[in-house]
């Protein structure tokens, strides 16, 4: 499977959701699409699924432009909170429809999972709570076994136990039936160890695309006495530096992959790894962050 975006721009009125996005995704991998709210994640996924037409630029998948392509729609599923199913259909009828739409759909798996999560298949989709709706949608997406499977913020509103079970099933399914899986989110909620690659979008632009492990290794958190943290941080690229306790500070810094950071532990400095979530949040943070905004708004008091 390969999805290719070339200079894709998407505008809603005056708002630009995507700005000249060029991105090539290839291989049966689990890829995290990360970014803050409004970064353009959902627009990118909807364009890949053929649900939206780009304002400019080209998208290609399976040799076709996804928009209005029957080939693409048979090979793609986009799971998101706004998934609309016919209100007159019970869940079991929806499963039957999905089976007709997707040749590899595994109805037995879907039914067993719904059963496990306590979702009765005679219910109507609109009757479900937010968490249950998202659970049903995600089960549908997993069971569809489409070569390109996309989940937009899939875990919202779910219980921790359900979330963890679904991620386990997703990984088992991926191993048994490899496919390209795109998972978007701004809160990662346990997904981060599943990613082989990450794509980071910021204000509609591509900020980073690469191997997830290497990306994470590019960041280090150092903490200790403030003066020492500042001194250590003065020679490297600092994404974030803040006081933790009076006289103590913590910084997230970027290091080139493969280099070791020289730190004198005798001075009380500690270095630890940074989670994927903290890394991308630090990378997309405005200078000074919320502390600066608050300080400016209140005249620095």
């Amino acid at each position, binding site marked *: 499977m390969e999805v290719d975006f070339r200079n894709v721009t998407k505008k809603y009125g005056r708002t630009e959701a995507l700005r000249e996005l060029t991105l090539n995704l290839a291989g049966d991998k689990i890829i995290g699409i990360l970014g803050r709210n409004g970064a353009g994640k959902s627009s990118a996924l909807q364009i890949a699924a053929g649900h939206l037409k780009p304002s400019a630029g080209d998208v290609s998948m399976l040799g076709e432009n996804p928009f209005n392509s029957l080939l693409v729609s048979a090979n793609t599923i986009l799971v998101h909170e706004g998934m609309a199913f016919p209100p007159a259909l019970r869940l079991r009828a929806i499963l039957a429809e999905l089976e007709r739409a997707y040749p590899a759909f595994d109805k037995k798996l879907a039914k067993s999972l719904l059963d496990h999560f306590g979702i009765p298949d005679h219910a109507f989709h609109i009757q479900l709570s937010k968490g249950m709706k998202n659970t049903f949608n995600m089960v549908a997406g997993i069971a569809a076994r489409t070569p390109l499977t996309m989940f937009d913020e899939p875990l919202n509103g779910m219980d921790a136990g359900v979330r963890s079970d679904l991620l386990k099933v997703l990984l088992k399914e991926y*191993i048994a039936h490899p496919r390209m899986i795109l998972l978007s989110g701004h809160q990662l909620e346990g997904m981060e160890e599943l990613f*082989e690659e990450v794509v980071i979008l910021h204000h509609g632009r591509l900020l980073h695309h690469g191997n997830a492990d290497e990306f994470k290794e590019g960041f280090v958190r150092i903490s200790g006495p403030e003066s020492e943290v500042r001194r250590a941080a003065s020679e490297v690229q600092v994404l974030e530096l803040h006081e933790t306790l009076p006289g103590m500070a913590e910084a997230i810094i970027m290091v080139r992959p493969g280099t070791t950071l020289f730190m004198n532990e005798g001075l009380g400095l500690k270095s*630890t790894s940074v989670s994927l979530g903290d890394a991308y949040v630090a990378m997309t943070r405005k200078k000074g962050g919320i502390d600066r905004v608050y300080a400016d708004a209140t005249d620095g008091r």
Partner: protein
Amino acid sequence: MPINPESGIPIYLQIADWIEDGILTGFFEENEKVYSQYQLAEQYRINPATAAKGLSLLADQGILYKKRGLGMFVSPDARRIIFTRRRNGVLQEKIRDAVTEARLLGLSEVELISMLRDEMGGDK
């Protein structure tokens, strides 16, 4: 062993360490098959590519060897390789710590070496 994403050690190194521990304790015996990348991925809920990176790290050091189509096996030399590397690594680190501490205290090289010599002598 639970994988700890916050521990400061990359996940694939934690996987490699865990297999090494298994070899040292005899859980994996020589010429025996170790877990596949997929088994490791499911067990620790990580991407199979990350698990594979841990396995190939051990293969690169000669701790594991690959049998085509069958998977990864513990090489007869594995224990010795792990033992040697860990001993050197740990000792090296402690020496570095001692040097850092000595500098902080303003000890000279001669003073530090004489302390080392005393320690070595004291063991006899």
